[in-house]
């Protein structure tokens, strides 16, 4: 690389309104995941400002950022990232556990989530005993259990076959219909095309930013 600085992201200026459905597309290495990580407060930009809900969050302490991740942001990953030794119900419960919610409350909310995502029958199964679609439904249930205002999905259907992937997408889009901001990162054009706003990225820069009315 020599002394040439490499920028994962460069000169990004992006504003996403509350309740939007945005897809971020681009080839691998285009910086789309890094952008998602910055939006999700997992990564810090070397310079620049990031405001969430009108509040500057880049300068917050690590603990305060963790609180925002816990309460306002829900992550959905390509590889699900379920804890293998915990059951489906326990995986869904994790954010509540971290948030210090009382056990009685936790049980009620986990039960509701299990019902909502049709996982009641699989509640006591470990991830290894679940199908890919079920795993991603557990992950989505976990991402939404704290009722976040933003859902960040990084290639949510990347490890699923077409039909199951479509089911998972409609689950996420349902959340969007209920008012949650949905940001999906993908390199799948068809998937990205479902979003109302499509952002194209290359070499750490935003190339295109288009609005579509899909309905």
């Amino acid at each position, binding site marked *: 690389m020599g002394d040439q600085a490499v920028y994962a992201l460069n000169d990004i200026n992006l504003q996403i309104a509350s309740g939007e459905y945005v897809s971020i597309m681009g080839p691998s290495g285009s910086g789309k995941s890094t952008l998602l990580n910055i939006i999700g407060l*997992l990564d810090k930009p070397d310079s620049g400002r990031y405001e969430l809900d009108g509040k500057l969050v880049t300068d917050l302490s*690590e*603990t305060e950022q*963790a609180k925002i991740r*816990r309460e306002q942001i829900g992550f959905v990953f390509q*590889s699900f990232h379920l804890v293998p030794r915990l059951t489906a119900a326990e995986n869904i419960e994790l954010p509540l556990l*971290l948030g*210090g919610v009382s056990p009685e409350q936790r049980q009620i909310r986990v039960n509701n989530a299990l019902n909502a995502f049709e996982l009641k029958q699989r509640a006591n199964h470990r991830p290894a005993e679940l199908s890919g679609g079920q795993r991603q439904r557990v992950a989505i249930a*976990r991402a939404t259990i*704290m009722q976040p205002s933003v859902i960040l999905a990084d290639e949510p259907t990347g490890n699923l076959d077409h039909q199951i992937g479509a089911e998972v997408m409609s689950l996420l889009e349902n959340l969007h219909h209920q008012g949650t901001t949905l940001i999906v990162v993908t390199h799948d054009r068809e998937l990205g095309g479902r979003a109302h706003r499509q952002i194209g990225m290359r070499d750490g820069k935003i190339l295109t930013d288009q609005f579509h009315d899909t309905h």
Partner: protein
Amino acid sequence: MTLTDTLHTSFKTVVSYRIRSLLIILAMALGVGAVVVLTALGDGARNYIINQFSSIGTNLLVVLPGRAETSGSFLGAVLGQTPRDLTLKDAQLLGRLPQVRRYAPLNVGAAELSAANRLREVTVLGSTADLIPIRHMQLALGNFLAHGGEHTAQIVLGAKIAQEFFPRSQAIGQRVRLGDSRFLVSGVLSSQGETMGFNTDEIVIIPIDYAQAMFNTTSLFRILIEAKSHSDIEPAKQAILASLRQSHDGEDDTTVITQDAILETFDRILQTLTLAVAGIAAISLIVAGILVMNVMLVAVTQRTAEIGLLKAIGATSGDIRRLFLAEALWLSLVGAVLGFLLGQLGSLLVRIAYPQLPAWAPVWASIAAIAVALFTGMLASMLPASKAARLDAVVALSKK
């Protein structure tokens, strides 16, 4: 994350890695168990010896001729004199001291005992009636030099001697020959076994006059003295030394040993021994601590993706650190408690195998062993826990 939830979550983690957890717990348990058993042995030995030594008398002082010090101002040694002997007169003088409850002069020798067509060599003690209570001996039958019998040819037989010579008949009233003199058996000692390497079952006791005549001596081997109370021991020692100095023309040529001083010395030596043994056993606890560190480091590496996920869904660095510390705490705690039980079981087996040995682990040792186990466990998991807490979420999430 609340403390209860942290402890509960990490406990479930410990349970789910069954084999790994069992091995660590076993290592901890063996360390703690070793400390408990070894201190039980050490303290048991200490108590055994103290008991043995206590059983030879109460508030006992022993006067012996000569000085125990190798340096000092005993002029007699320079002039080629041997220390003055202790005599019966000395003993009687000491008996009149206010701090002295009773005294017994003592001569020891060996002679042939014959009776009922049997013959054997025995250890002969020459003393007075007070020897029996001072030395905590007990007569199974008869009496010894009771009421004005000081100058009659009586003999008391040790339990085993009586059994050997008179297996089927009453020993009391029998006539025996000891050396060249005839004695009348007036009593038989009850069996006491060996104390401090001296077996009272194989001795005979005769009046001091007869012993001195038999061994052709006027000097005494020892004078045994029982002080009136525990607080009288030290004053009695000073009074005895002063009294003997006076009657020995100002020479300090006797030594007084108190049972207390010897007990204290034994106590100190064996306490140190117990501590040393406990220290050696504690090394295994440190080894167990290093094992905990190793296992927790492996756990952090294995669960990197999981740590990343926990951070993504809102765990703070503190949450992660506490989860790993709690996991190590459970491993150490369960190991320590199990080790304590194991140690108690081991001590019980020792007590069953050697009933004479009171092998009870001292409370301080058990508490210290558990505390050291918890401390090393926690200390050893500091590094892995903060390594986990410092992990970068993005990097951790990308690990498979």
